[in-house]
Structures are given as C-alpha cells and as structure tokens.
C-alpha cells in the first residue's frame, strides 16, 4: 500500500467501478488489465501484482 494513496487494488477497483459501466466481470477484467500494467515498487525493486477472480455468478451483475 502507498502511505497516502492506499492500495493499488482497492484504488484501481474504485476507479473502474465508478468511471465505467458494464457487467461486473468485464469491469474486473479491466481492473486486472490496469494492475498488470502497473509497476509496484517494493524495497526499491519493481514488482508486478494482479487480482484473481473466481465467479459462480449465474447472471450478469450490473452495479451502475
């Protein structure tokens, strides 16, 4: 987590869920894309991180 800006995951998720609309699984694919692009610095070394999504949804879920 960034001391002031928070965690890459939560901040990206909130950005995508508030700025975009569509079925939740498509929004989460966009979250994964953005996180995979990001370079996370940890102890001076560049790291990569991405979420893992497991779904048993039976229908499309729209939050917007």
């Amino acid at each position, binding site marked *: *987590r*960034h*001391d*002031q*800006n*928070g*965690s890459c*995951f*939560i*901040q990206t*998720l*909130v950005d995508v*869920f*508030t700025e975009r609309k569509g*079925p*939740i699984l498509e929004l989460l694919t966009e979250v*994964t894309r953005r*996180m*995979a692009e990001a*370079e996370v610095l*940890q102890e001076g*070394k*560049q*790291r*990569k*991180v*991405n979420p*893992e999504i*497991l779904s*048993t*949804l*039976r*229908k*499309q*879920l*729209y*939050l*917007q």
Partner: protein
Amino acid sequence: MEEEMSNPRPLQEEAYDMSGARLALTLCVTKAREGSEADLDALERMFRQLRFKSTMKRDPTAQQFQEELEKFQQAIDTWEDPVSCAFVVLMAHGEEGFLEGEDGEMVKLENLFEVLNNKNCRALRAKPKVYIIQACRGEQRDPGETVGGDVIVMITNGKPHTIPTYTDALHVYSTVEGYISY
C-alpha cells in the same frame, strides 16, 4: 439443426434484479496498514455512487470479523424490503485462506464466506454476493515476465514491457472446492 449449428445465436443476456436494497459491509484492520484510510475513503465514495447502504468497521479482531459478518447476515435476513445484493470488503494482513485480526489472531476466510451462502442467508438466496479481499495470500514477490519472451520484446519508456506471471488464464472447475464432481 445443421443450420442452427452453423449460425450460433447470441447469448440471451439475463441480469440480476438490482431494484431492491444494496447492502455493503467493510471490515478493515488499519493498525500497521498505512494507507488503509485512503482505501476506506475511496470505498465510501464508491458505495455512495453505486447506491449501497454501507457499514464500515475499523480494526476488528479475528472473532469480530466473524461476528460482524453474522450481524450483517441477521440484518439482511430481517431487512424490511427485498435485498438485491451484498458487497463485502475485507482488508487486513493475511496468508492463504486466512485473515489476521487486529489482535493478531487468524480467521478462516471460508468461515466468513459460509455466513452469507444460500444455505445460511435466506434473503440473499440466489442473489449476488460480492467479496473483495485486500490481503496477502503468501510471501512470494512477482518480478513479472517480459512480454514476447526472448525474441520480441516490447519496449515502453525505455524499459521492457512486463506482465505479472499469473495473468491471461481462465480456470473453470466442474465443482466448487471440497465438493464431489458428478
């Protein structure tokens, strides 16, 4: 029949009815987790925009993680109007399958998920339940992999373009964890 096979029809899209109440619960350990207040602020903004009734609790112990989920389940099951969706955000230190409470004790994620399943939460039966977990699941660090392998390397900003080791996969099991597959 043959014609049907050669002209597949688009999927008939069915969506969850979201006209009822939307309820959210956020449980967040903030101690020794700098930046967590920024995450809570962002989530509060998101829940407001998405019209969720949001409850947030800071620094739950391991036992309180379980108790707060159970209180949430009882609130949902006694809600006056129909409930459409539950959104649960859990933020803490953790390891695979476990979260660490403010007291340093561990709580099993599976036990938390059980509380709102179709068996234990009647009002959410067949309704969408979204869990967002912000926590470590181990100690490994991913340096990433160069896109294109050794032959073609995309260069962005003077550096090779890398992606995380575990992306671009879709895992689909025939049954959920712990259950027989027929």
